[in-house]
């Protein structure tokens, strides 16, 4: 399946540097604009001036009505300092990776610094160059788990970023622990992680508007691949990732839309699993409108889940290691791919 090999690489080699395109960020963020007024936004990404998350919020600082924008970078990010030369040589010892120093940016207002009539990214750049207190070096390496970064997290209201896929569990756990609002990009399969599934079951987090296969910029050091890989005319390397979706706890319209169901239940068409009392529905659209027991659906169901229509009961995955993973999904002796278990809400017809 497209994209999976890239995901596997990410997990195996800790290749976590995937840079989200601005258009992907814009097409998702447009559904949440109302949430940001007066808020402190944190993008703990890799290099603020490489990150389109930082760019998005810097560009829209005033239209969203942000109170503050914080961005941090991570020491080992391979592309740090490549786009904007913000430090002179006295500040930073050198550009070799061993001597890179992580920093943070804190912006509380964006005005027409360079007086060209526009309030835009060039003003943010001006701010960074000329106001030393806007950009400061971090003591530690910029890891999201470092005490310094946790302090920044505590100050923030909403976190929007592309967390390292290999540390996705820890990243979500930290956000939940601190009770933060967030909108982060990830892989659909994370839904079934034992640390994450209960959050979906209790309606504490949900998936965003867009999902699918998307291209991400990757560092030059990443090896070339036969599939889901390209180099554009500027020499930039790209990889395509499958099953990409947004994880959030910000409310939006889509999660309140009911699916129009039209199939009727019959035991012949909807057999039960060999080892678990639930019916198998291999396509979300085929969920019968008149079945009130437990239903097994593919994980992509989650992109259409409306908590008023269905509740999430658990998962059929490996059948172990997790109190909500009840069994493997076995039908007529054959093991199926993981299934999410759902049930209609009471009173629904």
């Amino acid at each position, binding site marked *: 399946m497209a994209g999976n090999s890239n995901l596997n690489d990410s997990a195996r080699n800790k290749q976590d540097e995937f840079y989200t395109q*601005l258009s992907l960020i*814009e097409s998702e963020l*447009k559904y949440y604009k109302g949430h940001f007024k007066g808020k402190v936004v944190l993008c703990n990404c890799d290099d603020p001036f490489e990150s389109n998350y930082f760019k998005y919020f810097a560009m829209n600082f005033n*239209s969203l009505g942000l109170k503050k924008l914080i961005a941090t970078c991570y020491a080992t990010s391979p592309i740090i300092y490549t786009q904007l030369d913000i430090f002179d040589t006295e500040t930073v010892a050198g550009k070799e990776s061993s001597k890179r120093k992580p920093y943070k940016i804190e912006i509380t207002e964006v005005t027409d610094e360079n007086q060209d009539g526009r309030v835009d990214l060039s003003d943010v750049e001006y701010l960074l160059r000329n106001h030393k207190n806007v950009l400061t070096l971090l003591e530690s390496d910029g890891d999201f788990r470092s005490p310094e970064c946790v302090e920044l997290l505590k100050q923030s209201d909403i976190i929007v970023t592309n967390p390292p896929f290999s540390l996705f569990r820890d990243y979500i756990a930290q956000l939940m622990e601190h009770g933060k609002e967030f909108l982060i990009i990830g892989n659909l399969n994370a839904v079934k992680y034992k640390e994450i599934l209960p959050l979906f079951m209790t309606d504490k987090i949900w998936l965003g508007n867009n999902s699918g296969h998307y291209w991400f910029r990757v560092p030059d050091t990443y090896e070339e691949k036969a599939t889901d890989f390209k180099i554009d005319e500027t020499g930039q390397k790209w990889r395509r990732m499958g099953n990409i979706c947004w994880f959030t706890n910000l409310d939006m319209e889509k999660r309140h839309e009911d699916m129009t169901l039209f*199939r009727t239940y019959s035991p012949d068409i909807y057999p039960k699993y060999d080892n678990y009392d639930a019916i198998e529905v291999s396509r979300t*659209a085929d969920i019968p409108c008149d079945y009130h027991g437990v239903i097994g659906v593919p994980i992509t169901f989650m992109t259409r889940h409306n908590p008023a229509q269905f509740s999430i009961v658990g998962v059929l995955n490996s059948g172990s290691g997790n109190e909500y993973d009840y069994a493997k999904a076995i039908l007529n002796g054959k093991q199926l791919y993981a299934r999410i278990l759902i049930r209609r809400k009471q009173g629904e017809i």
Partner: protein
Amino acid sequence: MKIKLHEIPVSEVVEGYIDSAENGVVGYNGRLNIRPAFQREFIYKDKQRDEVIRSVKKNFPLNVMYWVKSDDGNFELLDGQQRTMSLCQYVNGDYSIDHMGFDNLTQTERQQILDYRLMIYICEGTDKEKLDWYTIINIAGERLTAQELRNAIYTGEWLTEAKKYFSKTACPAYAIASDYLNGSPIRQDYLETAIRWLASRDGKEIEDYMAEHQHDTNCNELWLYFQAVINWVKATFTEYRSKEMKGLEWGIFYNKYKDDKYDPKQLEARIVELMDDEDVTKYSGIYEYLLDGDERHLSIRAFTPKMARVAYERQKGICPKCKKHFEIADMQADHITPWSKGGKTIVENCQMLCADCNRRKSNV
């Protein structure tokens, strides 16, 4: 009917712009239905979207757009959805071009966009007049299908509901009937077909049905009817054959023959037999033939000129009915034993009749 050109500044069109995804998109202070609920969603490429903004920034003209005035004084956008959405989204700050969102522009640049005047033809009149007008203007750009045009007129809760079932990619109607219908839900082919079948049952046109039900609160009649048609087809012709069965007028058949008793097993046996018959040249006609018995649906193989010549020589040019002599050009080849009685299209079963006698024979 009135058709008038209006110059409406961008600032007025984007006023009160709300994109509620599935539930539609509105602008012009809530008075313009930019994209009705469950309507085809144009996926405008970033490049095309950006071009609209660049044109406006340079004060280049955009093509005219068409709005329709509804009975309640509001407007339906008929043509120009993509351009309008591009403008609304840009001013709304939904996207940027070269790292420059609307809010990042200078005051002058922003004002210039807001003051840009869109050329909009607004049409007022009866439903019939509007439909005529749309059909005529519908010549440039992304052409609207006949049903898309109807959808622009007969708006209301009934249509919104109907689109849920018939007009989305992977909608319920597609899920149950894609084996039997041609076309695409988003181009409204499914909706059109379903309404046409149901309307035809009562001897009506699509427009009549839509006008009558425009203000219904649900589309249950249409959806239940459509399901009944598909269930009837599946129950009657149990073996599915995609090439022969897809795109037939199943609803029309259902209207006429749903109360007749057929034995699906016998029908299937006849289908196999007919497909095996060398004289049947149109397999898709087999289904209708089995229902109404009219062998014209089957395009029974005709005698070749060579067979006709052999028969003509055998008869020495004499018509076996009226016993008169004719030139071959004035005679027609005919099955001695009719195809329906087992006669084949072979030279032994061919006779040449004069035009008069042949006509008389087929009238019997």
